[in-house]
């Protein structure tokens, strides 16, 4: 029964996806209803996840699923983040689609499918399960990215993402193969055994290498980051928000789970992850500083946050791994990023005509509350107290120093200094420059409500970091 409760949220999401798919197939409902249903399923899954409670990592339906699914505190946090992301992406989408009319009922179905894939990804305790879950998630998101078929940039983003994503997927498959060769099985437990007995096994090394390349690609770590700018730019704002948050949460959860399967495995990767984290943070900053488009800047800043999360991965200790730091950071990051994309969803206007920094000049004069919310999100992303982003960064740096990675902690700090530039740049534009337009928006107030809720949650998560 307990096991059933544990996978209940997942079942709810899958069920919701199928329901919406069927409704879409028969075109029986309005878009608003579809969005409502989607929100309902996300909310229900969220609630179910909360109800299911949590505990230490354990296998779910070990007999039936042959030990391929795990659940615990960490996966619960990740699932909650994913469900929340789905929920708020739905609210944003609803408003967005009332202005940008390329919608379809399948959109919400795909959103739910993607979420299902993500949750499966976080819970995977076996590589091929993870691979397929990853593909479920990826395929759904590919489609979401390219959903606006009439817009060539969306298609271009789709092409880039799909092509590179499949490319990375092939690495995942090859990595799985090599690990299979090393362990004779693709279960994490088997790999852990090998890692414990022969830590320097070349097959283990090579397999993990290819596997990690794929994961690093998905989270847009340097040097596998280049796609992310263009894809975020080309996708619709709510989709970008969903990708930037939920996807990253899912992949990082898997990443952490894999690294944490055994200390020896983690130990072998500390050095490379160290450099990757450093390069990722700085590359992200350097890309962000040169951008004029908000979405591109946010994409680049997402790279920077990937860097911070990699710092967190460097610092995890496989023996005492709880995922708290990573989970908290993911939640904090998700709240800020989702919020800003929610705001962009309704402020962007038709065809996302307001896209650059300059387009948001003087927003605070005309729409002070929106500007204030965006400011809060930006401050959270920049890590200014008392927002969630601050606490997230605090935890990450704490864990890095605890792990003895002081240099990495300092570099992370330096990187956050660099990131101030472009976050402040938007605030400067919104507050310190005169307004040139009225920023009139149409459509439902859902995105706005979501923005406010997220702004509040940024503070709530920051001031009461209960989940850690």
């Amino acid at each position, binding site marked *: 029964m307990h096991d059933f409760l544990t996978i209940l949220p997942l079942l709810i999401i899958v069920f919701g996806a199928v329901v919406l798919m069927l409704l879409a197939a028969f075109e029986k409902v309005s878009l608003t209803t579809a969005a409502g249903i989607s929100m309902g399923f996300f909310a229900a899954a969220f609630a179910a996840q909360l109800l299911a409670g949590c505990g230490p990592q354990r296998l779910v339906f070990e007999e039936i699923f042959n030990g391929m699914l795990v659940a615990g505190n960490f996966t619960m946090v990740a699932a909650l983040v994913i469900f929340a992301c789905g929920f708020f992406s739905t609210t944003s989408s609803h408003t967005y689609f009332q202005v940008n009319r390329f919608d379809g009922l399948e959109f919400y179905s795909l959103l739910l499918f993607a979420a299902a894939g993500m949750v499966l990804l976080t819970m995977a305790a076996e590589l*091929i399960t993870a*691979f*397929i879950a990853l*593909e479920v998630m990826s*395929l759904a998101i*590919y*489609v979401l990215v*390219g959903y606006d*078929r009439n817009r*060539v*940039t969306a*298609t*271009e*983003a*789709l*092409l*880039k993402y*799909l*092509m590179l994503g*499949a*490319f990375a*997927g*092939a*690495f995942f*498959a*090859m990595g*799985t*193969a*090599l690990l*299979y*060769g090393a362990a*004779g*099985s*693709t279960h994490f437990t088997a790999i852990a055994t090998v890692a414990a007995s022969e830590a320097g096994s070349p097959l283990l090394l090579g397999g993990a290498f290819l596997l990690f390349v794929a994961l690093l690609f998905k989270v847009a770590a340097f040097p596998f980051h280049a796609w992310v*700018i*263009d894809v975020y*730019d*080309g996708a619709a704002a709510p989709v970008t928000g969903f990708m930037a948050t939920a996807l990253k949460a899912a992949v990082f959860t898997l990443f952490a789970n894999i690294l944490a399967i055994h200390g020896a495995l983690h130990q072998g990767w500390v050095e490379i992850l160290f450099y990757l984290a450093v390069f990722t943070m700085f590359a992200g900053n350097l890309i962000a500083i*040169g951008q004029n488009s908000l979405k591109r800047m946010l994409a680049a800043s997402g790279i920077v946050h990937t860097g911070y999360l990699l710092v967190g991965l460097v610092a995890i200790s496989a023996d005492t791994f709880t995922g708290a730091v990573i989970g908290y950071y993911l939640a904090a990051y998700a709240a800020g990023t989702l919020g800003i994309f929610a705001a962009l969803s309704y402020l962007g206007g038709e065809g996302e005509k307001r896209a650059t920094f300059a387009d948001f000049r003087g927003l605070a004069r005309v729409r002070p509350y929106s500007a204030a919310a965006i400011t809060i999100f930006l401050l959270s992303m920049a890590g200014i107290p008392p927002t969630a982003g601050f606490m997230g960064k605090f935890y990450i740096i704490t864990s890095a120093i605890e792990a003895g990675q002081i240099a990495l902690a300092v570099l992370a700090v330096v990187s956050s200094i660099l990131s101030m530039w472009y976050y402040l740049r938007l605030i400067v534009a919104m507050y310190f420059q005169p307004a040139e337009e009225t920023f009139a928006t149409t459509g439902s107030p859902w995105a706005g409500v979501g923005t406010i809720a997220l702004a509040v949650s940024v503070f709530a998560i920051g001031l009461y970091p209960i989940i850690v």
Partner: protein
Amino acid sequence: MIQDYLILSIILFSLGILGVISRRNVFTVFMSIELMLNAANLAFIALSRLHESMDGHVLAMMVMAVAAAEAALALAVVILLHKHKGKLDTNVFSLLRG
């Protein structure tokens, strides 16, 4: 002997990578990716033989399923691209840059 299969698999995998980075034709690129997946499959099967367990066969089937799904989507994208520009040159699609 099993090693030879694996080496072949690595070679095919590398050739797949080469195809991805050196070609601009969308079809070729996707087929290169298929080639990489095939290479992975070969490794699965060979290792399955090595370990004398049939798990590798199942894994290869799964990879095939994934490859098929990806192919379906990829072909849809190809159609979409063709509708947009009438060309299948990846370099044509570089509106998003900088």
